[in-house]
């Protein structure tokens, strides 16, 4: 059901861990399926993601998308990171099973949550607000119709 890339990132997740002196930390959870992701960012003065680490409690897709998202944002600017969507993360993994698409939302939201934390800490003018984090519940709706 998972692509080779998903299995690769699941088995050898990149950037697992913590950054004790992180410039931003994001934590999101979805109690419906019981998944939690915590993301640590180290950001340079000119707004480039210098280092990133994560910890995830979740399914194979949650761990793989967490890992992939850290690869995608490392070296990017904050502005570029704001544009990262869950479908882009899923695509980078050669796709996810439809029932598992919502797992990739976890990674997108953890990133947004971290960037919001960064905005709060630095007072920088970053186009993101609490609104963006409302966690639009649709993504988490568990579709039991196995219509594929």
């Amino acid at each position, binding site marked *: 059901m998972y692509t080779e890339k998903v299995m690769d990132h699941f088995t050898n997740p990149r950037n*697992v861990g913590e950054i004790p002196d992180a410039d931003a930390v994001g*934590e999101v959870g979805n109690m419906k399926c*019981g998944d*939690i*992701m915590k993301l640590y960012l180290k950001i340079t003065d000119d707004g480039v993601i210098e280092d990133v680490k994560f910890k*995830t*409690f979740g399914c194979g897709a*949650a761990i793989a998308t967490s890992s992939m998202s850290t690869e995608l944002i490392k070296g990017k600017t904050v502005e570029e990171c704001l544009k990262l969507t869950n479908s882009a993360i899923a695509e980078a993994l050669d796709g996810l099973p439809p*029932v598992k698409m919502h797992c990739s939302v976890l990674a997108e939201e953890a990133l947004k949550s971290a960037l919001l934390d960064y905005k709060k800490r630095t007072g920088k003018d970053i186009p993101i607000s609490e609104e963006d984090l409302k966690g639009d519940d649709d993504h988490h709706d568990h579709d*039991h119709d196995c219509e594929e």
Partner: protein
Amino acid sequence: MRKIYLDHGATTPMRNEVIDAMVTIYREEFGNPSSIHQFGRSAKKQLEDARAKVAKAIGADAKEIIFTGSGTEADNIAILGTARMKAKQGKGKHIITTTIEHHAVLDTCKLLEKEGFEVTYLPVDEHGILAVQSVQDALRDDTILVTIMHANNEIGSVQPIAEIGQLLKNHPAVFHTDAVQTVGKLAVDVNELAVDLLAISAHKIYGPKGVGALYVRKGIRVEPLMIGGGQERKIRPSTENLAGIVGLAVAIDLAVSELATESKRLEGLRDKLIHELLTKVPETKLNGHPVHRLPHNANISFEYIEGESLILSMDMKGIAVSSGSACTSGSLDPSHVLMAMGLCHQTAHGSLRMTLGKDTTEEDIDYVIAELQTIVARLREMSPVWEQYIKSKA
């Protein structure tokens, strides 16, 4: 790489004896048992021999066995068939079941609620066991059906069916038990259990998939699910799956004859697995009853990690296990059985079912114990919840 299959609760490999018997039928007995010529008569004889064998294995009379296309179908005929028959007779609309039934029973009861029946879902205790008294308390004059599984497919807890059967002897309600997980693993005798209906599935006992049987006690009538020819006393029309039925008969016969020694062996391995995991891995918990459980079932919660990633990690090491019933693996909800036992979402999600089988050896168990420790440690290291727990303890 080693391959260790510990998912016998989901399905089992076929026995060679079963395959051989089926191939003989495939090659030599292709007649339609309903045909009156020699090909048909010969097939018919095989069919009735198989029926007698299955009946004998559960202490029933051959006339009381209806072959079906699966365990699910046997459960559905039992439940829908009884409810619809009783409704037609104006006998009442109340049904009693439990919160931990297999979906073939639970969701069928939910359908009946939509059709105007009233269903009482009895809770189980923290070990997944139903109190006999709760059945007594729930019984009403208009109760037409009591359907309680013999043993649970996820946590392995065995219900006091015989006691409930005794209780129901004084009540007109029909008593059905889903024995898909117990036939061939525990002693199953329809008279000792005092049940009216009992569902069997071949693929859980080294037989073929797509074959089941329903025991229907003499005098009990059920409406069929489907309509067609006169096969299986019109309760289950369709040209009979003769090879599959013979496969079921051979499988059940062997399982029952080996039951005593094999269940003891499995219990030994299962207890070693449970004991070592609970002692060697911190923050673990056994689900289900420590004693009243299926001989081959170990269900353990590993706190702070998620079930699917645990299963996938074990799969990479060649170990096949599951987190609940296979048929719901498409769903993301935590097991309804674990939730019914009072586990919280997170603990339910981090649960593993390991079900042993006839080819499982002690070396397999040792390998699994060793690998699981490494895997759990690695996943916990990645888990923010574990991090939090460790910090809170510090």
